[in-house]
């Protein structure tokens, strides 16, 4: 048991060590050369400031978190049916796909101010920006997965005269789950970026707002603290999606870990 834990922790050891080393070097070099603190603060200063402002930071983290989650949920709710439509209907694919690509071609940072104008400066506009950034990988990956159903299984279903719905539920969608989840993993980190971009453009809440307002008052310690929290949030959400993936498709995680073992 302990050995298993050790084996799991080992790949983490090196990156954590490198990170700790870099932080110490940062602290030492900055102190030696006396770099102005308001330009780039010290790690110790950031942690201290973040701790002093913990209640404030947590309140704003919560706002960004739920904007992110709402945008992410919306992107799943819209992206998945879109992927199904694209795969099943060639007509709708040729009608919808170019439009999807257009929505992705316009930089989200450029859309955000317009959306704020339309939807107001509240949370809704941030949710929509998060959604716009996040749904595309879900559509593309899920569609790829659905299109990758082994043709033999489709022939088999056809020879049993199973309905298209039954084939979808019992074969095609579960077969596409690993693709779906790789879309979700990209989408969830993008959703964080989307929410923050929305907050940058105009808001009085959220970690994006904290960063903008803190830097305008030269409070770089606090801005760095907010950045740190954003990173923690993105990593946490990514890990959460990966955990769900492991629970839902254990065969896939198994295949990845035993690349030489037989696997579908």
């Amino acid at each position: 048991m302990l050995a298993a834990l050790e084996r799991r922790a080992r790949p983490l050891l090196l990156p954590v060590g490198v990170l700790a080393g870099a932080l110490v070097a940062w602290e030492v070099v900055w102190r030696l050369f006396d770099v102005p603190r308001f330009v780039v603060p010290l790690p110790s200063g950031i942690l201290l400031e973040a701790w002093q402002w913990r209640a404030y930071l947590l309140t704003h983290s919560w706002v960004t978190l739920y904007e992110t989650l709402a945008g992410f949920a919306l992107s799943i709710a819209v992206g998945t049916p879109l992927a199904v439509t694209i795969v099943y209907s060639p007509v709708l694919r040729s009608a919808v796909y170019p439009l999807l690509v257009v929505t992705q071609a316009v930089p989200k940072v450029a859309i955000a101010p317009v959306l704020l104008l339309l939807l107001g400066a509240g949370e809704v506009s941030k949710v929509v920006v998060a959604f716009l950034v996040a749904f595309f990988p879900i559509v593309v990956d899920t569609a790829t997965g659905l299109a990758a159903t082994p043709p033999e299984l489709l022939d088999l279903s056809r020879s049993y005269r199973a309905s298209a719905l039954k084939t979808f539920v019992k074969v095609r969608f579960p077969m596409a789950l690993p693709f779906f989840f790789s879309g979700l993993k990209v989408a969830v980190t993008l959703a964080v970026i989307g929410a923050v971009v929305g907050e940058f453009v105009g808001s009085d809440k959220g970690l994006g707002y904290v960063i903008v307002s803190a830097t305008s008052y030269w409070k770089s310690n606090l801005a760095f603290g907010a950045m740190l929290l954003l990173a923690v949030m993105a990593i946490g959400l990514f890990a959460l999606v990966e955990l769900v993936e492991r629970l839902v498709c254990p065969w896939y995680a198994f295949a990845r870990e035993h690349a030489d073992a037989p696997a579908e």
Partner: protein
Amino acid sequence: MIQLAGVGKTYRTRHGEVVRAVEDVSLEVKEKEFVSLVGPSGCGKSTLLKLVAGLAPATRGAVRVRGQEVREPFPDVGFVFQNAVLLPWRSVLDNVLFSIEMLGLPREAHRARAMDLIALAGLAGFERKYPWELSGGMQQRVAICRALVHDPSLLLMDEPFGALDAMTREEMGLELLRIWEERRKTILFVTHSISEAVLLSDRVVVMSPRPGRLARVLEIALPRPRTAAMEFDRRFLDYAGEIKELIFARRA
């Protein structure tokens, strides 16, 4: 059981080229007969299986199964492909019962039958295992059980042992014969391997390259049950030599 009368299949590629996959194939397969189709790649062997299963319509001629013209897929067939294509989230038992579910038959009523088949295929004790815990040969055994669980009268096999290593392949062939002795079906068996075709079949159909036509049909008069030792039998070698000549003479 199966009658092919002057069957031809042409299809159009994405670039608009017309490809003649098979042409003028006439063949009769008797009830409970084991017939192999051999020939070079691209001679339309797999296409013939699809035509028989009703998964693709014939362009010319008629395909009949039990006197009925085949116009659409019918559930009285079992399919085994080159890859096992099992569903990785289902256990061995649930993979076998997949056919039952897709056919809309009651699962519980077929459970005992599925368990029997799994035991017959030498997989007793593996019912709760998942495909990724099995070797390639074992996965293919599960695929065979899946093809037999609804007791179809026709078994269509498209290079079922083609992805296995040579030793497992020979073992699986004899294993298939053992299962076939117990559950007699009409088998149409596509293969690249001449010795596999001779060892397993009642008759071997040799096909010529595109457009696929029947070059020759050979009656294999070896006694059953067949054994691995028969591969050194004079008659076995004669059959194999004759088939090889038919395939390679046309290439030269």
